[in-house]
């Protein structure tokens, strides 16, 4: 068996043998689907009370993914835990003693986690969509409508990229506490506040999660961004790649 395959199997064993994996991913799915369902049910009952402009730019697809506001935090938690638990437990010393080729180690860990998150992210996104649309009733859209399938797939990609971004940052910060303390408030509050304030919006709309939102939108006017979903994807990928490269440099350079 080639070396890389063996390291991948080893990383898979690691990821499936700790409880935090199940907890964080299950939370991401349940919270996203559940909260989206609540939003959709509320929207359906209040739709007639919405303003004319709001009704005109109503994005049923995005509404059925709105629970990701909280669900994404669990995805970030997964990314943080997968990487930083190596450092907080001291496991990193065993890991690097077993696989001293650090680039292989990092790539294998990220690949295994990415595959897992992609699967869970896609299930979450599709489940949230179908549950949400069922609740939206007459305001719902079909998966066959223009741009809808892309947006639902985009939901899964969005969650995956966010987890990857968190993994890259965790390789840089190495401490779970620090990673949580920076990433959680950032994605839950700061990013949204900066985008909400007109003075900072021009810059804040290029933050990873804000760019990623275009992925899940079908009605561009609902977001009012100067770029479309594919540019949004590129921006988010750029952030993620930058975080992973930073993490790779730190892993290569620093003592374990």
């Amino acid at each position: 068996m080639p070396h890389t395959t063996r390291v991948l199997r080893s990383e898979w064993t690691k990821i499936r043998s700790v409880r935090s994996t199940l907890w964080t991913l299950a939370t991401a799915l349940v919270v996203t689907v559940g909260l989206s369902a609540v939003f959709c049910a509320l929207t359906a009952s209040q739709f007639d009370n919405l303003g004319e402009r709001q009704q005109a730019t109503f994005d049923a697809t995005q509404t059925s993914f709105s629970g990701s506001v909280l669900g994404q935090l669990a995805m970030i938690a997964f990314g943080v835990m997968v990487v930083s638990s190596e450092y907080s437990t001291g496991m990193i010393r065993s890991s690097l003693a077993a696989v001293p080729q650090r680039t292989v180690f990092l790539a294998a860990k990220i690949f295994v986690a990415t595959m897992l998150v992609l699967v869970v992210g896609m299930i979450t996104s599709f489940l949230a969509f179908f549950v949400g649309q069922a609740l939206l009733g007459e305001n719902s859209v079909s998966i066959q409508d223009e741009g809808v399938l892309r947006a639902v797939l985009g939901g899964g990609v969005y969650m995956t990229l966010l987890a990857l971004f968190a993994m890259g940052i965790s390789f840089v910060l190495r401490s779970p506490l620090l990673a949580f303390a920076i990433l959680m408030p950032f994605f839950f509050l700061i990013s949204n506040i900066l985008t909400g304030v007109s003075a900072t919006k021009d810059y804040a709309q290029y933050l990873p999660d804000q760019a990623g939102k275009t992925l899940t939108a079908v009605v561009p006017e609902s977001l009012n961004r100067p770029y479309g979903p594919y540019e949004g994807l590129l921006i988010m990928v750029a952030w993620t790649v930058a975080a992973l490269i930073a993490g790779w440099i730190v892993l290569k350079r620093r003592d374990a």
Partner: protein
Amino acid sequence: MIELRGLTKRYGDKTAVDHLTFSVQPGMVTGFLGPNGAGKSTTMRMMLGLDSPTSGDVHIDGKRYDQLRDPLNYIGALLEAKAVHGGRSAYNHLLCMAQSNNIPKKRISTVLDLVGLSDVAKKRPKGFSLGMGQRLGIAAALLGDPKILMFDEPVNGLDPEGIHWIRNLMKHLASEGRTVFVSSHLMSEMALTAEHLVVIGRGKLLADTSMADFIAKNSRTFVRVRTPQPERMRDVLGSVGVMPVFEQDGGMQVEGIEPARIGELAAWYQVVLHELSPQKASLEEAFMQLTAESVEYHAQDQTSPQGAPQRGGPQQGGWQQQGAPQQGGPQQGGWQQGGPQQGGPQQGGPQQGGPQQGGWQPDHGGNPPRKRR
């Protein structure tokens, strides 16, 4: 075989490991000894490629650690700090390490049996005792059946049974022809297990010698003689070809002659003796003296090894009796009660012999205040 060449690690302007060059030979236990903070763990981490050296390198069977494919099959290590995810079962911990290094699964149950953890294989190490955690670390080190084994302070915090087990394990592994490299800050521990000794202090190599040589060189025996007639005693000893070494506080160290013979000579030449005591330096004291200048943090203590060398070197035991009577001890009861007029319990006779007392009293006249210091 492990070879270190000019291995150096600096953190800012502090040098943790300073141009270490030595090699670890197969088929024996090599002790890696040094006081706390001497750089032992840093050296071991560099051997495993976990820390990168500022300069110099380590070769394992001729290769750098990160050039080893499946390194666990060459070298197994138990590091001082815990290196296990507390939430991953012992079995799965070993499984993920085995998978990455192409080690067959059946080896996992073999090593778990070997360290006695088979019953808790499915348990999470979070709830393990210190000793169990140490055993899991050893199981991981043995997983690839490596020719080289490294243990960083393996007996730290273990109960006597665990210590005994690890000692025997290390000897057994060496007897199978493996290279065993074990660090400790306790000389007494090394004396029991190691055949070869590498001593470092402040990151510098202080000794690289066989244990037998170290013991021969450092377990010096001599006789301490104290007399009010030192010049005469010197001449007497000189007449049989022995040169005593004078200590600062008036005693003398005599080597190469039995205490009984000294006593007989003194009696023959009518030299008064106040002390005649055989002294033997322990290995621990030899180690302390060797590393005295390189100890990272000295305790503020009058008996610290810093002061020891001038006062008579390794024979601290004897020095405490004489130079630092405030330390208590059975002999002093007599001293303090009796004051200067009474000889020490060692001397017995002198207080009765009139003529000698004259010479003897002034000698000790200044002593009582010093004793109570």
